[in-house]
């Protein structure tokens, strides 16, 4: 067989606009139980600390805090607060919002980064945002530190860290 002709009709924008459609906006709402590990992680963020879990099996200090070591498959052996500084492992300069809509020209670019946190095992990074830095000045390997919300405004969320800024 040689596939020469294939079925399926693609609609042009004009055809699509004219087509009859059924719209549906689902009501989807969830409230997830954070449990032991992430519960402790969020409580620590509220206190202005980044919490890791240590495993005496493999010796790793892991981020975010977790109740069990997924590699050794045993409970972790306690939590340790690590530093709120780290190193940029990689970063992007985003011109789009979460829904792929474009940022306006005047809006600051989003600077997502994977940040390897000091005090955790090598390579243990988290996703966060960079701030107080021009996009062109960001480098892989750059030292950064957390900029926290004021203590009274923290809610126990990853956004209790506003962003990470370069260590001058």
């Amino acid at each position, binding site marked *: 067989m040689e596939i020469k002709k294939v079925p*399926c009709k693609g609609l042009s924008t004009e*055809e699509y606009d004219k087509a009859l459609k059924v719209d549906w906006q689902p009501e989807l709402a969830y409230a997830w139980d954070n449990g032991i590990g992430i519960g402790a992680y969020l409580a620590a963020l509220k206190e202005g600390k980044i919490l890791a879990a240590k495993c005496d099996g493999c010796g790793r200090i892991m981020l975010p805090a977790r109740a069990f070591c997924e590699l050794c498959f045993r409970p972790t052996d306690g939590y340790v607060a690590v530093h709120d500084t780290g190193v940029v492992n990689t970063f992007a300069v985003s011109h789009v919002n*979460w829904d792929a809509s474009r940022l306006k020209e005047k809006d600051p670019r989003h600077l*997502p980064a994977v940040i390897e946190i000091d005090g955790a095992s090598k390579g243990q990074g988290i996703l966060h945002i960079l701030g107080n830095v021009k996009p062109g000045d960001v480098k892989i390997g750059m030292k950064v530190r957390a900029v926290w919300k004021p203590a009274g405004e923290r809610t126990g969320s990853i956004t209790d860290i506003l962003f990470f800024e370069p260590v001058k």
Partner: protein
Amino acid sequence: MGYRRVAIVGAGLTKFVRRAQETGPELSWQASKMALDSCSLRLKDVEMITLGSAPDGFDGVHMKGEYLLSGAGGSNKSYIRNFVGGGTGVFAPIHGWMHVASGACDVCLVVAEEKMSSCHPTPQGAFITIFDHTTEQPLKPTLIWIFALEMRRYMERYGLTRADIARVAVKNKKNAMDHPSAQVAGEYTVDDILNSEVLAEPVHRLDISPAGDGAAAVVLASEDVAKRLTDRPVWLDGVGWNLDTSYWATKDLYYPRYVEKAARMAYDMAGIKEPHKEIQVAEPYDPFDYKELHHMEGLLLCPRGEAARLTAEGYTARTGNLPTCPSGGALGVGNPIAATGLMKVIELFLQLRGEAGKRQIPGKPRVGVAQAWGDLMQVGTVVVCRS
């Protein structure tokens, strides 16, 4: 006693389009019917069906496997949906392989469908919920971020430029001009890619495959049945899959170690010792141009960090030593996720039978590999085909 050898004996594919007139079940039906017709079978000859499709959020239906069931011929059959995110399209035939290799059935229909246009305003909106709901979603991430993060890490590790990577997009979009399903084929220059609209530096619009609608299907059969149906079966001789940790930010993104593990599983089963010498055609997953390079390395088709140079030298062109994405890949044919993965397996099926028409690579290839990838940079799915 061991497993039964499994062959691909028929294939079907729809056009990949931005917005299909057809519903998901209708797309599934089109591909399934074409696959059955291609090997002169009817639905009643099929004992079991497995369907692959990526997130329910795209089609906008909870339990979408059940929704697509009627189109995939699943009524009054053993029917199941398999799902490993973006890796689903190549996993679907692996799931079908389990059905036939185990003796559960002699003929298994494998369907892969995606209708991403149902999700409004864009399927990207469905992607925020792939991130961890507690530690990541509050940062309002978009899927493009993680690819930009991974691409930059890969470039940094090997000192690559965007131009080194853009050549993949140029090659695949051109290859796709010969593919009847193609959605975004065309002749572009490296500069076109580099100067396209920026999304999240270093990723620009033309580095990315588009969202799309489409479906694909293959018919798998046991050895004795396959030999009755065709004199040119293509054997599914190696299957492998692997899933890495969900803590994606804790591993170095420059190398897809899970793809290597999946590949080694498939190569081991297929008896392939030196993949870079034994494999003659490759269809690695290329939703982004750097991913083809990343995956060539993970598939052990070239040394780490060398894929870009080999691409520049024409090694991966249709006339090169290792034609890679001769179909046109996700970058050229389009990327209705699960359907794309299976499209790649169908490309091997056609290439190894010498039936790829204008896309046919020279030298009568006998061994090919197809691969897909997905989740939060976690999944590798690999099949090795032999004529």
